[in-house]
């Protein structure tokens, strides 16, 4: 209910007040309006400038402009830019295009005829003005007014500049290349290798701050005040410079990433565009998915021994398989730590693709899983379970030994169980089918895998699990065995192919 309360408080709640006492909000509350009055008072103290007053008549032109901007505000996704709180907030957080815009309004107010923005453009002003005309104790023109109309608007009034300058502010860094291997033949000590910021990955949807829940919902509520960006301790939220989302927060992982456990943006958001997330639940909010590109990864291009993304991942969702990073789609929360630390230039090789609707993951409690599996294994049952993309198998009488021996790193935890590393999608389904397991804990599956199982009439339990897990269709590609099992259709063929891979 927080967002309702706050959005109402920003202006809708003022309508009844306006109905009683006129444009109180514009005169005494609105920070943008007050700063215009202040400028007028300081720079031109003698001049009686036009104030906000519903008693003053509005010409046809003014009404048209008013209604046009009101329509823009309500209809356009970027309409929030007109909200006076947002305009003022962007100044408070020292966002440069916002300051330019604000300054333009002040200049108009000082050297034009009073509060031009409020009377001509501001959608809130238009609404309040309309309401205030019917107010009980409405606006007063002021003592000593002879109704001379000198203060009335002139017809040649120009529109204030639109959200200008936005195109001019580009933070793309054109620096390219890193002398990554400069120090391969290290003869002398000291000094620095060159570093450069990566470029912004193009054509990739950026995630919204955790708690924004939904792109549409967010676009309705965010007024672009910039508070979240100013307060972000991870330094990854920045005010956007693009025209349609000017001043709204944008995830930029070049200078930081979303800290796990941090809920600062949702704490400070005044309009509840970013909903509250409990610190303990932060790691369960998935804002996007890290996608790795082999063609850019320095493990492929320079054969470097890099494991930056694997080291940095706070949820251990990235594993090195066969020498390359593999992202566990179910564990990745899209925090951007991997993208931030990726040394590939000019673009990072691992990039977070933002979700339009954020998801919640409920991780399997490790203790429960291990304990339950152990009980089953000790009783001679066969089980299949997956956690963080690692599949634990215990098979009765099936010969997977060569494939499974290679993956012994978790077997200490689960004496008696065989362990399969990083199998997802179709190969996982095949293993599942072959294992004929007594219990399935969780399978990381793609839709292919689901269809595969359905076609063979296997595993309704698994299909149900698929529904429980927030899976992503068609993303089985990060499984190291996916390529090998491509085009194969039967369980035996696929499991055989997997066996070959792990043997080599």
């Amino acid at each position, binding site marked *: 209910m927080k967002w309702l309360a706050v959005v109402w408080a920003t202006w809708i709640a003022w309508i009844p007040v306006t109905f009683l006492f006129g444009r109180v909000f514009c005169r005494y509350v609105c920070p943008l309006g007050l700063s215009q009055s202040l400028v007028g008072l300081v720079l031109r103290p003698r001049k009686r400038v036009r104030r906000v007053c519903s008693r003053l008549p509005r010409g046809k032109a003014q009404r048209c402009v008013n209604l046009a901007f009101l329509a823009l505000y309500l209809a356009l996704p970027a309409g929030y830019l007109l909200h006076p709180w947002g305009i003022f907030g962007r100044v408070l957080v020292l966002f440069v295009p916002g300051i330019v815009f604000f300054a333009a309004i002040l200049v108009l107010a000082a050297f034009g005829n009073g509060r031009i923005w409020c009377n001509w453009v501001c959608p809130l002003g238009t609404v309040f003005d309309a309401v205030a005309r019917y107010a009980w104790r409405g606006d007063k023109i002021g003592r000593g007014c002879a109704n001379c109309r000198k203060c009335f608007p002139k017809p040649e009034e120009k529109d204030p500049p639109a959200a200008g300058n936005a195109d001019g502010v580009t933070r793309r860094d054109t620096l390219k290349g*890193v*002398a*990554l*291997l*400069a*120090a*391969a*033949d*290290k*003869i*002398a*000590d*000291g*000094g*620095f*290798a*060159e*570093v*450069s*910021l990566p470029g912004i990955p193009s054509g990739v949807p950026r995630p919204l701050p955790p708690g924004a829940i939904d792109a549409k919902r967010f676009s309705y509520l965010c007024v672009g005040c910039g508070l979240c960006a100013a*307060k972000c*301790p*991870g330094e990854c939220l920045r005010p956007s410079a693009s025209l349609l989302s000017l001043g709204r927060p944008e995830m930029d992982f070049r*200078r930081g990433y979303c*800290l796990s*456990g*941090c809920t*600062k943006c949702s704490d400070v958001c005044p309009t509840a565009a970013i909903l509250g997330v409990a610190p303990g639940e932060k790691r369960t909010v998935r804002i996007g998915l890290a996608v790795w590109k082999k063609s850019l990864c320095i493990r492929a291009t320079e054969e*470097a*021994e*890099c*494991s*930056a993304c*694997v*080291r*940095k991942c706070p949820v251990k969702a990235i594993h090195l398989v066969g020498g390359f990073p593999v992202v566990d789609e179910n564990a990745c929360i899209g925090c951007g*730590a991997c993208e*931030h*630390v990726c*040394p590939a230039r000019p673009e990072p090789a691992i990039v977070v693709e933002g979700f339009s609707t954020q998801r919640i993951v409920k991780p399997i409690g490790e203790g429960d899983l291990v304990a339950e599996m152990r009980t089953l294994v000790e009783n001679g049952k066969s089980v299949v379970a997956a956690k963080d993309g690692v599949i634990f198998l215990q098979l009765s009488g099936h010969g997977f030994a060569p494939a499974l021996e290679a993956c012994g790193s978790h077997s200490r935890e689960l004496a008696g169980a065989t362990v399969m590393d990083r199998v997802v999608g179709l190969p996982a389904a095949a293993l599942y089918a072959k294992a004929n397991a007594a219990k399935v804990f969780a399978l990381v599956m793609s839709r292919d895998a689901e269809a595969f199982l359905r076609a063979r009439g296997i595993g309704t339990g698994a299909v149900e699990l698929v529904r429980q897990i927030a899976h992503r269709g068609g993303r089985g590609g990060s499984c190291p065995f996916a390529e090998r099992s491509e085009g194969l259709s039967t369980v035996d063929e696929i499991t055989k192919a997997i066996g070959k891979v792990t043997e080599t």
Partner: protein
Amino acid sequence: MTVRMSSDGKKVSLLGYGAMRLPTVDGGHANGWAKGASNAAIDQKMVDRQVVYMLQNGVNYFDTSPAYCRGESERVLGNALAASGFPRESYVIATKLSNFSPSQHSIEACRKMFASSLRNLRTDYIDNYLLHSIGNGGFSTFEKRYISNGALEWCCELREKRTIRNLGFSFHGDPKAFEWCIANHSKYKWDFCQIQMNYVDWLHAKEVNDRNLDAKYLYGKLTELGIPVVVMEPLLGGRLARYNWALANELKPLDHDATLAQWALRFCGSFDNVMTILSGMTFDEHIKENIATFSPLRKCSAPEMEALERAAIAFLNLNTIPCNSCNYCMPCPYGLDIPAILTFRNRMLSEKTAPSAAEAIKLYKSMIPEELRRADHCTGCGRCVPHCPQSIDIPAELAHIDAWIDDFKLEAAK
């Protein structure tokens, strides 16, 4: 200036000038900690002035290496010594066979390195030539660098020809390499040996890292064989000289006028088989203070030695990372400022200068101003690890510090 004798009967000042931390024109030093590492050029004029000042005050031992200060140290020092106007016999030049890179292992590369040392130092002979950090990278690396390629035999030949006056080695890392050299002393006749010695490493080097040997053991072995000892890291890269609440707590009450650096230098000078003590003096103040300490050196009394031992234990209890900012790990291929990051951790532990999380982050950012050089950008490639003479697991430490920083950020946001 207290003076000791070298193997070939030359008078050597007990204080030696280490040219590993030369000043740079941007006000830091080339292997610095205060400003972090630097790519700025070395301040030749300042070095010129310092060298003259030291020669005038009786310091005559100058230690360098082809690897120091991005490979600039020998040239800058050579220029300064040549310009000082003092005759060549009046000072001792020590430089090293720093053939760390596999590309430098061949005997041809070693010859080239020696020839370039002579050229850079503007001389036709080297007083003290060292096999550089013989335990680095394990015993097999030692064999490749000096034994199988015949470099050690070649050095002995050079000594016979008097192009090298004294042959020695500096030791860090694998104890096997040290033991091998000691066992073969009758064959190679080491004229001197350079070891890491200070009041912490005297009895506790093994505690700091299991691969180390205590300085007392090393010193004892060398003294037994009559090999003069050159001390390096008497101040642990400044960690025993800069403010440190644990050390100040132990040592200041004994003598409020003495600086921590004086204590550490006096400790090393108290041992008679120590020929010279190398100090990387970057700024004029360091030089003046150290010359005062050595003119003449007062040996530590027994109760003072006990106090130093107490200070060593207090120092160890801080659990700092044993990084001395030698910059052997640099340049990191990914551009990280490794010494500055490790020093940040050490400052936090030993100076207590940042009481709140917000101040810790401020300190971190001020010590490593460029964000791409901070700990999170470590890729774990591990290329720095074999270079570290202190055998620090650098990627693990960086990951640890990075997690620490994230905690600070969260705490500061609350």
